[in-house]
């Protein structure tokens, strides 16, 4: 049997079960580990010389990272899943029946099954260490806590807090965990050794003192649980549009078991878990989790090169993107210098950034003093002074080849020759932009998405001559900034816009053919996209969208020909979308209504089959995605899916664009595309990759 822990007993009768899974950097609760624990707990039941058992971990920054996700992913049969999780429940439940007090000492990540184990102990002690993270994130993987978490957490925090934690998959730091009652005490890491000792003494001498402090839940929790549930349901509906079964199952389960004993509740929990674990949605979410883990490890280059350390960053351009990027870098403690045309732009940019920080202060993520310091590290100039010591310049000026190239020439003159020059262009070719540079190897695309503070994706685009060092550096920097970088090929529109634009274009064409665009938006919303294509176009700005669409039309020709309606709405009617109050919709505050002027552009209306609308909008994306894969624009289907989820909000429960393609079947897609191509033109001609896959019965995953 594998070694999962070290057991010791000192002469004071204090036993220590120190988790230390062999050949692994982390502790996880795999079946094998659980079996090992089972044997030990059985043995301990009869121990007479033990006064207290503490469970600790020997891993740096980890208590227990959670259950083994691969095992959950492998579950296919509901009964099998039920049996498996029941067994785990029983093993962990033994902790609470041991004839002596038990204590979990949490100094590191304590997530999912890890917390469920800790919840089985009589007492919990954690540290303020920044690695200490406590929570039940199972719903993020489409399942629910199956080792007793749903039944035991509420007994410590009260019902509403437990719901909040489980439904949101929230991760707490040590102090917050103590405040909510998840742990009994939280101590600074440096004090742990002696605080641990005195806490054990307290347990042995005066446990009442600890138990007195435990939360009893709010009066609402105790007397009006129905109300708590109905609030929670409303919240879940607003957040997930009820597209995700796991939060709903958590609500049902907790409502059903609200007045039940733990042991009885566990049975219900196991049933609910088993139902969820075998759903496609859970598999999809697990797939995306793997993709994001894989991307976290990506360095962007195959060769081992060291990323340059980046301390000071110049950002040129103070528009929406520029300000967002300045915020993002200042937030992680970089010195950021803005280059502007006029000083008043600095005031506007700082105003925008202050607003974002104010929101963060409101959520207690940063203190006003910390924000002042970060704001103070943003400087501004109308010249290029102060650029010579910067490690990286990020250009976010207008999408104009000449203007950009002239800027790079100036930057190359002033900046250190090792410094990196990056462009936030959303559509221009990186290789082309760098063609006049002296050192094109230092040049790379770093494409953020709008709004920068909220969108997690950054496309990293190496040009033909970009050095590995430059790529590795911007990949590392994007990660440091809390973003997920995906390296993509240097084609027009790069990855996400190249796939997304045909979809918007197609939606507009359907409107041109007589479809009701409010209905298209509603259908797409129901499909799971965060907003419909017409709302999206208005949000992005019709000017921006039009320019990108034109660049793509130039590059890809007939396939991406801009719909004539877009021409008329933007060029003739001069509508800009939300920022000017009018686009496809008329926007006033948070409300919007259909703009009848635009509707009037099309005279002949016809009704569309709902499936046809979805097919045309989504399949055209799948087709383009397949072409991107066949051209090697992105490394694999997994990364492509992740990029679409993060960059466009493609519904995670569908697992990503290509996982969705797999679910409808490649040959079905090819057939539909072929018939669409017959009716609507060559833009639907299936990609070679799809045709080959259909022929060979292959899937993306």
């Amino acid at each position, binding site marked *: 049997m594998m070694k999962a822990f070290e057991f010791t007993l000192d002469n004071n009768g204090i036993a220590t079960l120190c988790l230390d899974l062999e050949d692994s950097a982390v502790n996880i609760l795999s079946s094998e580990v659980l079996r090992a624990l089972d044997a030990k707990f059985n043995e301990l039941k009869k121990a007479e010389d033990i006064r207290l058992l503490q469970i600790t971990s020997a891993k740096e920054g980890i208590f227990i990272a959670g259950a083994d996700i691969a095992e959950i992913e492998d579950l296919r049969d509901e009964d099998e899943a039920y049996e498996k999780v029941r067994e785990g429940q029983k093993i962990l439940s033994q902790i609470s029946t041991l004839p002596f007090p038990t204590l979990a000492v949490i100094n590191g990540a304590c997530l999912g099954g890890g917390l469920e184990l800790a919840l089985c102990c009589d007492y919990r002690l954690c540290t303020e260490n920044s690695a200490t993270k406590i929570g039940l994130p199972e719903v993020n993987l489409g399942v629910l806590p199956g080792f007793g978490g749903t039944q035991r957490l509420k007994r410590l925090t009260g019902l509403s807090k437990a719901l909040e934690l489980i439904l949101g998959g929230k991760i707490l730091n040590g102090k917050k965990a103590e405040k909510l009652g998840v742990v009994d005490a939280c101590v600074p890491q440096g004090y742990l050794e002696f605080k641990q000792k005195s806490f054990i003494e307290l347990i042995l001498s005066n446990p009442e003192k600890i138990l007195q402090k435990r939360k009893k839940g709010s009066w609402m929790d105790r007397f009006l649980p129905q109300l708590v549930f109905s609030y929670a349901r409303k919240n879940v509906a607003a957040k997930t549009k009820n597209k995700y079964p796991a939060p709903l199952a958590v609500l049902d389960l907790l409502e059903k078991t609200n007045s039940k004993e733990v042991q009885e509740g566990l049975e219900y929990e196991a049933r609910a878990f088993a139902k969820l674990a075998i759903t496609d949605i859970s598999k999809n979410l697990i797939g995306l989790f793997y993709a994001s883990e894989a991307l976290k490890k990506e360095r962007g280059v195959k060769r081992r090169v060291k990323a340059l350390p980046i301390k000071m960053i110049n950002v040129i351009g103070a528009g929406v993107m520029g300000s967002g990027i300045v915020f993002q870098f200042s937030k992680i403690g970089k*010195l950021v*210098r803005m280059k502007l045309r006029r*000083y*008043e732009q*600095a*005031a*506007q940019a*700082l*105003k925008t*950034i*202050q607003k974002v920080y104010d929101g963060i202060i409101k959520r207690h993520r940063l203190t006003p003093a910390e924000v*002042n*310091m970060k*704001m*103070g*590290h943003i*400087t*501004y*100039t109308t010249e290029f*002074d*102060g650029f*010579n*010591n910067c490690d990286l310049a990020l250009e976010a000026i207008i999408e104009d080849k000449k203007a950009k190239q002239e800027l790079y020439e100036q930057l190359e003159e002033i900046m250190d020759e090792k410094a990196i020059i990056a462009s936030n262009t959303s559509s221009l070719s990186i290789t082309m932009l760098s063609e006049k540079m002296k050192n094109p190897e230092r040049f790379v695309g770093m494409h953020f998405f709008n709004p920068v503070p909220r969108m997690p994706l950054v496309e990293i685009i190496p040009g033909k001559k970009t050095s590995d060092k430059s790529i590795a550096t911007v990949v590392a920097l994007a990660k440091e900034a809390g973003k997920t970088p995906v390296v993509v090929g240097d084609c027009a529109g790069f990855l996400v816009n190249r796939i997304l634009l045909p979809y918007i274009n197609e939606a507009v064409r359907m409107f041109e053919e007589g479809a009701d665009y409010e209905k298209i938006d509603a259908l797409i919303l129901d499909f799971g996209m965060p907003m419909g294509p017409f709302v999206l176009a208005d949000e992005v700005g019709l000017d921006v969208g039009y320019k990108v669409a034109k660049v793509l039309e130039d590059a890809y020709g007939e396939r991406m020909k801009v719909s004539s309606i877009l021409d008329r709405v933007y060029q003739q009617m001069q509508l800009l979308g939300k920022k000017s109050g009018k686009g496809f919709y008329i926007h006033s505050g948070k409300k919007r209504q259909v703009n009848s002027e635009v509707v009037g552009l099309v005279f002949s209306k016809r009704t569309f089959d709902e499936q046809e609308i979805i097919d045309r909008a989504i399949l055209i994306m799948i087709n383009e995605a397949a072409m991107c894969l066949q051209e090697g624009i992105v490394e694999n289907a997994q990364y492509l899916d992740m990029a679409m989820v993060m960059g466009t909000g493609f519904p995670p429960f569908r697992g990503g664009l290509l996982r969705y393609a797999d679910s409808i079947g490649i040959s079905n897609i090819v057939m539909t595309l072929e018939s669409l191509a017959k009716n609507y033109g060559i833009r639907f001609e299936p990609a070679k990759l799809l045709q080959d896959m259909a022929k060979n019965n292959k899937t993306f995953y």
Partner: protein
Amino acid sequence: MKERIAIIDGIRTPIAKAGGNFKDIQAERLGAHIVQELALRVGIPFEKYDEVIMGNVSQPGHAANVARVIALEAGFPDSTIAYTVHRNCASGMESITSAASKIMAGEGELFLCGGVESMSNVPLMYSDKMKELFEALFKAKSITEKLYTLTHFRPRYIKPIVGLMQGLTDPVSGLMMGSTAEVLAQDFGISRDEQDMFALESHKKAEAATKAGRFREEIAPLVYDTKSGKIMEDDDGIRFGQNMEALGKLRPFFDRKNGTVTAGNSSQISDAAAAVVLMSESKAKAMGLEPLGYLSHYAYAGLEPKRMGMGPSYATAKLFDKYKMSLKDIDLIEMNEAFAVQVLANIIAFDSKKYAKEHFGRSQALGSIDMTTLNVNGGAVALGHPVGMTGTRLVIHTLKELRRRGKHRGLATLCIGGGQGASLILEAE
């Protein structure tokens, strides 16, 4: 000095009227902004600096040793040492001359120095009576005892002591700075009209300089309000179109009955920061830098506190004697305008053989000041006098003006509350 001190570059914030644009910005924030901006513009990496020295008079309670706070907020590494100097109104010069001494003594090669003052944020203080009451309250053990203590409260206890007023009062003579100016007006028989005329000139010259963009060459704009997005690029104390009538309407502030010194012919209370980068001339050469200019000599002198305004004459006499210089060697003079009357008194004293003999034991007068070389772009009467910052501003401005005029040598001098004077010889090449 063995060698001249190179001043690589210098900048300042705009000067804002106290209680105005910068009222919500603490001194350390003002200082950090300008220090960071200067370090970036000069382009020498932060970690190469040996020390940061800042002058500051009102020494904010929440940021003791404000220079260190400034250095850290500006982005200097933890290892950069920093200290704050205080020589009243010359604090912004003291930081520079302290660095000069250190460079000469081999205690460091590269310094970032300056001065900062947020006169808006000088606190109000409780009276001693109120303090006693608080202490008694803390000591009181029971509620009844506390309530009993409270019966000793009298409304007048809450009348605050204005820290700013206290700071601007000479502790030895007990005179407010303005009152020491009145002493000079009496000594030299300088009328209200003469003072107002001088003040008017200061505004006119500063107005012209602002319109010509001369101050923009030394100002680093500051976004002072990020809530509504406001930036300040010019000083706001200068009254465009100032006239004698408006100045004449103001009542004397320090001697209501017979006085001549008004708010209009005194320097203004303001907020600002300024900074310079210093190293030895030889190091600048070795690094291939082209400095803004050089500090070649300096002197501080002490005098009777109640006539502190004469500081420039005393310090300049000491400097001239020590380095065998005369007014003929000077192309440009920046004499701080703490009060119009105080500058006028110094102009007379400079030219007086009698004054030179009586006070400095010199057989010759210091010399007649050519008025076309004195405070050519106006002074503190128009711009404001953020006490800890002014010294640094004078150094920067003298050098920039020398360069504009293609001239060689300037004198930057100021009077110092408490009875001192400072004089610095600055050279453009």
